[in-house]
């Protein structure tokens, strides 16, 4: 690992000041992603500001009934919290489906929001990657695309966002509180992550010197009836091929309200707005669920060529949008997982 200067921050003020004073400095929380990327030479900060001792470790109920989660709450503590488990089981389940017991004891909520893609070409510094090195090109386009996204991709980047926790937060309309030397601001979760477009190296709406201090969940009674389902190559300890976070309220046989977000398939944690709009007011039956899932994945499917055609000859190549031969299975897998989760919520209720 390249040497770097180390600063241990005493409080939030000194942390944001230290990063503002050292261009290119990075905040270090649990280290489960950043330390790995530094060892691989993908991240090369000259200064690391250790924020792991800052007192941002509380989970509190807000006066309006929402929840405030400190940015340095460890993943394991978040998933075990009684309020989180009973009020939004989808969040506890999403966190528990990520990484391993050891890593969840280290990884923080703030760091999870900023974790970087697991695209193998991003990690391999011998490969071309526009995210790692702007303008270099993308070896994933014609390469191994099993882990890549099918929604929100561009001609520059098809990497999938890796987080499970973020999928639940997208469904729950979370708000992210960030702090810098310029003050405090609040970013709606849907605006936190950016689609790759022509600048895949710019992944969030945050400036480099902004520190995530908390995540707030607005009161959402619907979230008590929610669940997370993750489909992956192994039964445990693997990134998602497809995942679904959903909350559903059925009244008189119709969908009164719904929240739906997808993981493993999007260039960012994917809130399924299109599917939600179709579901609201529709009969809470399999046919409605299927139609909503079809609509959400339509953008992924429209351009896909018949299976077997080399990636390089596919229409998707023109602008990088839609699925590739190596990951077009995610479209049908994603639809079926959406339907299965909604059906179970309609039949049985939440994961709690």
């Amino acid at each position, binding site marked *: 690992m390249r040497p770097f200067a180390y600063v241990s921050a005493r409080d939030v003020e000194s942390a944001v000041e230290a990063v503002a004073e050292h261009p290119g400095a990075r905040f270090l929380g649990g*280290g489960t992603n950043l330390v790995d990327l530094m060892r691989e030479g993908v991240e090369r900060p000259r200064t690391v500001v*250790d924020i792991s001792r800052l007192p941002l470790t509380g989970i509190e109920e807000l006066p309006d009934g929402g929840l405030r989660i400190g940015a340095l709450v460890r993943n394991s503590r978040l998933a075990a919290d009684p309020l989180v488990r009973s009020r939004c089981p989808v969040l506890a389940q999403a966190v*528990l489906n990520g990484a*391993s017991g050891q890593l969840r004891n280290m990884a923080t909520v703030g760091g999870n929001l900023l974790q970087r893609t697991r695209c193998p070409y991003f990690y391999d510094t011998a490969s071309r990657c526009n995210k790692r090195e702007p303008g270099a090109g993308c070896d994933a386009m014609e390469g191994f695309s099993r882990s890549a996204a099918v929604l929100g991709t561009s001609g520059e980047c098809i990497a999938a966002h890796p987080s499970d926790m973020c999928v639940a937060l997208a469904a729950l309309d979370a708000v992210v509180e960030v702090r810098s030397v310029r003050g405090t601001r609040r970013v709606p979760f849907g605006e936190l992550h950016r689609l790759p477009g022509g600048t895949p190296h710019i992944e969030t709406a945050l400036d480099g010197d902004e520190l995530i201090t908390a995540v707030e969940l607005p009161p959402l009674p619907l979230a008590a009836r929610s669940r997370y389902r993750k489909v992956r190559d192994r039964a445990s300890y693997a990134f998602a091929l497809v995942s679904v976070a959903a909350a559903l309220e059925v009244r008189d046989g119709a969908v009164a309200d719904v929240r739906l977000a997808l993981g493993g398939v999007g260039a960012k944690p994917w809130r399924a707005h299109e599917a939600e709009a179709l579901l609201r007011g529709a009969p809470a039956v399999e046919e409605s669920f299927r139609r909503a899932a079809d609509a959400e994945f339509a953008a992924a499917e429209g351009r896909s060529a018949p299976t077997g055609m080399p990636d390089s000859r596919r229409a998707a190549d023109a602008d990088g949008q839609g699925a590739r031969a190596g990951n077009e299975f995610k479209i049908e897998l994603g639809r079926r997982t959406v339907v299965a989760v909604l059906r179970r919520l309609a039949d049985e209720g939440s994961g709690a």
Partner: protein
Amino acid sequence: MVEVRLRVNGTAREIDVEPQVSLLDALRERLGMTGTKKGCDQGACGACTVLADGERICSCLALAVQYDGREITTIEGVDHPLQAAFTEHDGFQCGYCTPGQICSAIGMLAEHKAGAPSAVTEELDGDGAELTDDEIRERMSGNLCRCGAYNGIVDAVREVAGP
């Protein structure tokens, strides 16, 4: 160089390390405690698992400087019924992953006792899941065994966890 004070297996230790040195390398190379193993060095295999203030972590992704002032337990400091149970149930073949498996299992049993749920726990708002084989396998999934001694590992953990 940064001065780091650790309590390792009950003994106070002081070392000067560069900030990029992992807790794993500090234990093995600076303190000469080679019981903790380096497998993947990227948090994927669990061979480097140690306990920090009783919680299991991957020491390869932990910078030693971040653990200043903490209590670290490595396999050299473990005296636990799991060790005999692993021997009894053939919970290993080559033994390379075993220190990590044992430390991980100790941390896992404490998590379970404290009521922490897992990804296979059905009743999330219940008092805590029974430690079934499915629960053991899910909770221990961060420790890989290339020899494939998983059945023995599950048997050993189940025996120690008790009814």
